[in-house]
């Protein structure tokens, strides 16, 4: 029920603003294991550390890392997601031209549906990483992802009316050891027309 300002509460019931039946089969389905693009390199770690201003010698000082219990250079654990992101060409193909590297992944199918439904804005809102093993320079990262849930009602947000969904990632190294479980929350939204006009120039 709307309040006196005509605003629906967040826990409003399922609303007929999108066809949820197209989404339901995608929930709880995990993608196939994706093969790594590349190994974790010293250069990858160096770029991260420059931007983050990370001076941890386990990431930046080969001699220190070799003498540590780890026996060699590590990469910051938070980097693990980096190696699941594609090349620049793949991203531009996906986000500008709508051609995805993994068109059968559940999140890609979900994004296609929500965009057709008018939720053209997209924004990551939260994530949780549970780290089980250290990420090492030289590792190859395999991953799988799926959709855990999608809100079945519209949220009223600063960006506009939107829906939230949660992705589940699992990251493995070349020895099939689980490095990290990650949830990743995304808001897709319909930017208000007033905002679009304002920034259209």
């Amino acid at each position, binding site marked *: 029920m709307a309040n006196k300002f005509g605003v629906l509460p967040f826990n409003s019931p399922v609303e007929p603003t999108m066809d949820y039946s197209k989404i339901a089969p995608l929930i709880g389905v995990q993608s196939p294991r994706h093969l790594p693009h590349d190994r974790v390199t010293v250069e990858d770690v160096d770029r991260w550390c420059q931007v983050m*201003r990370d001076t941890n010698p386990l990431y930046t000082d080969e001699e220190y890392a070799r003498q540590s219990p780890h026996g060699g250079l590590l990469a910051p654990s938070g980097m693990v997601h980096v190696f699941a992101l594609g090349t620049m060409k793949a991203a531009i193909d996906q986000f500008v031209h709508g051609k995805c590297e993994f068109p059968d992944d559940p999140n890609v199918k979900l994004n296609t549906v929500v965009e057709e439904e008018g939720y053209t804005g997209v924004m990551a809102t939260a994530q949780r990483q549970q780290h089980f093993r250290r990420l090492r320079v030289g590792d190859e990262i395999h991953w799988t992802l799926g959709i855990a849930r999608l809100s079945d009602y519209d949220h009223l947000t600063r960006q506009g009316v939107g829906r939230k969904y949660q992705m589940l990632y699992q990251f493995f190294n070349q020895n099939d050891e689980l490095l990290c479980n990650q949830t990743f929350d995304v808001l897709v939204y319909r930017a208000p027309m007033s905002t679009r006009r304002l920034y259209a120039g």
Partner: protein
Amino acid sequence: MSREINNVYWEDVQVKQDLPEKSRVIDTTLIAMGATWATHDFMPVHHDRDFAQSKGAPDIFMNILTSNGLMMTYLEQWAGPKAVIKDISIKLSVPNFPRDKMDMNARITRKWQEKGENLIEVAFNGDNQMGPHASGTAIISLPTRG
């Protein structure tokens, strides 16, 4: 390479202890390079102002991998190389846009031992001039003096 390396030990920290605050200037370079160069996130809303505005945003904005990286680095730089972040949850509120500054702070909220590990939980925040950008909690395994 010789340098002074500080480690924080589990015995030396207390619940309700505040970590020293740190700040980062948020500019176009940090947002664009953080997204593309450091975290391989080529979604154009993080480096292409025209594209971001076509999606309803006023400017490019920081990607969550960079926000997570800045907060993890803030915590690790305090704790030292012997510490391990086991679990980190981060929630984004207002975006980090260019021409801003993010002030990072954290407080120890819990301290315990479990399965041979010496753990603390910290609650952290990264605030910009519009309000909270990133907030969350992290569980960190610390070394002991023993």
